């Protein structure tokens, strides 16, 4: 579905050059919910921007469904850290924006807008302006806006990072439900390990800049759904994965998802036997 092959990206600013990505390879299969976790500034947002088509790699290839990504497209919906709603439009008009760009007919547009606003519980606020909404409500609208284009792939860049705990929890539950019902492919960037473990069908841990894949852990068999961030298994697995991040000796290690899953041991005990593995993990589903 999504494939990165030896992708490198360097940014040049007045303060010098920054190597955000250096020869990273990654494959994400259709229907996966992949959470990319890493320290801030590790290049995970860059990675997402490349998949979104907002940026082009310096070298290497980024493919969606086998074709190189040359720019943004309606097959890939994006949610940013900030809602990025347009203040000159009402809630409803914001959701309709992309549909108009895609030349969806008026009736279809209205009914889709209605449907997705209902889905995120914002139908009552269709006529409201952006400044009248709380942060959580804005992200709900942003989610509806991304979903309204019915993309196969949903790219999310720390969308709930700035929200209070309650809104975050509600929105996480919502996204998990949407994934379960629609089978969309989701790539979710976060620096919050617990969030990643709660949501993802697979968690990819990235190391510091330039981003490299340190671990790729398949969670679907380990943790039943629905999950919550304060669930014991989630907390323990998150703590364990985090430990790997801090420990430089383990920096190069990658957990082989298949192995740990077959062994069926407690998540907390597993990483110690981690071995350097193939970073280009396919999809064991």
């Amino acid at each position, binding site marked *: 579905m999504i494939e990165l092959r030896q992708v490198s990206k360097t940014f040049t600013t007045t303060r010098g050059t920054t190597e955000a990505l250096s020869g990273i390879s990654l494959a994400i299969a259709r229907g996966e919910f992949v959470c990319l976790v890493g320290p801030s500034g590790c290049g995970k947002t860059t990675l997402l921007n490349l998949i*979104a*088509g*907002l940026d082009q790699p310096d070298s290497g290839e980024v493919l969606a469904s086998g074709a190189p990504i040359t*720019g*943004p*497209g*309606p097959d*890939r*919906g*994006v949610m*940013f850290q*900030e809602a*990025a709603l*347009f*203040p*000159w*439009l009402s809630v409803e008009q914001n959701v309709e*924006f*992309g549909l*108009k*760009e*895609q030349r969806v007919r008026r009736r279809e547009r209205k009914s889709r807008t209605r449907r997705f606003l209902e889905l995120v519980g914002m139908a009552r606020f269709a006529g409201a*302006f*952006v*400044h*009248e909404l709380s942060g959580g409500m804005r992200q709900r609208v942003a989610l509806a*806006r991304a979903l309204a*284009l019915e993309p196969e792939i949903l790219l999310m860049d720390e969308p709930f990072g700035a929200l209070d705990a309650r809104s975050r929890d509600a929105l996480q539950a919502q996204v998990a439900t949407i994934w379960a019902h629609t089978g969309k492919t989701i790539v979710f960037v976060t620096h919050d390990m617990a969030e990643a473990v709660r949501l993802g069908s697979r968690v990819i841990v990235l190391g510091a800049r330039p981003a490299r894949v340190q671990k790729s852990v398949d969670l679907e068999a380990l943790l039943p759904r629905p999950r919550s961030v304060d669930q014991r298994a989630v907390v323990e697995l998150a703590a364990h994965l985090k430990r790997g991040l801090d420990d430089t000796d383990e920096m190069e290690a990658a957990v082989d998802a298949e192995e740990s899953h077959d062994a069926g041991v407690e998540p907390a005990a597993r990483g110690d036997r981690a071995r350097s593995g193939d970073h280009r993990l396919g999809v064991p589903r």
Partner: protein
Amino acid sequence: MFLLALVAAWEAASKSGLFQSWLVPSPVDVARSLGEGISNGTIPRGILISLRRLAIGYSVSLFGGVALGLGMARSVWLKDTLGTLVVGLQSLPSICWLPIALLWFGLSESAILFVVIAGSLFAITVATESGVRNVPPLYLRAARVMGARGPQLYLRVLLPAALPSILSGMRLGWTFAWRSLMAGELLYASGGLGQLLQTGRELGDLARVMAVMVAIVALGLVSEVLVFARIEARVRERWGTDRT
């Protein structure tokens, strides 16, 4: 209330005999002159002629200024070539364009339109440019991932996002256009309110001069209250930026 007190003080001053009556006409004289001007059609005709010039000149400035500002904000080439020029010309008092206008167009309608356009175009350009430049890049990225490209990006994202700034430029441009027009009309043009002022002066009829001034102020207030204040209130409501 304040205005009434002011008029009363004015009346008292003109009646007090401290000033010669032809230098300080009483408000009653001014009102009479205004009524006369309106009933014999000179003031309405002047208003129509002036407003027509203003409408044409300002429309050109508005579209030209917004287009130029948008271009300068988005194209490094335009910014490098026209940027300094526009800022420089903007600081030029509009009446300085009059000699050029007269030489190029003669004593014609085109000359006065030229002055009006030259006087207001650059204010709108500069405001549009800074407005567009300050549009958060996030809006553009959000629009692009939803499929907006090219002209759509300009019309549906950049312009509305820059609207608050463009609006203040429009307001400034309107004032500049008005002033340039009056200056131009005072100096030479036929018809229009500016010329009425000039004939009032030539006749030494100060009440008439003041009557025309009242008409000009009234027009300014009407355009402010009926047009700009309304648009701005709407924008404020949408964006949630309150008068503080």
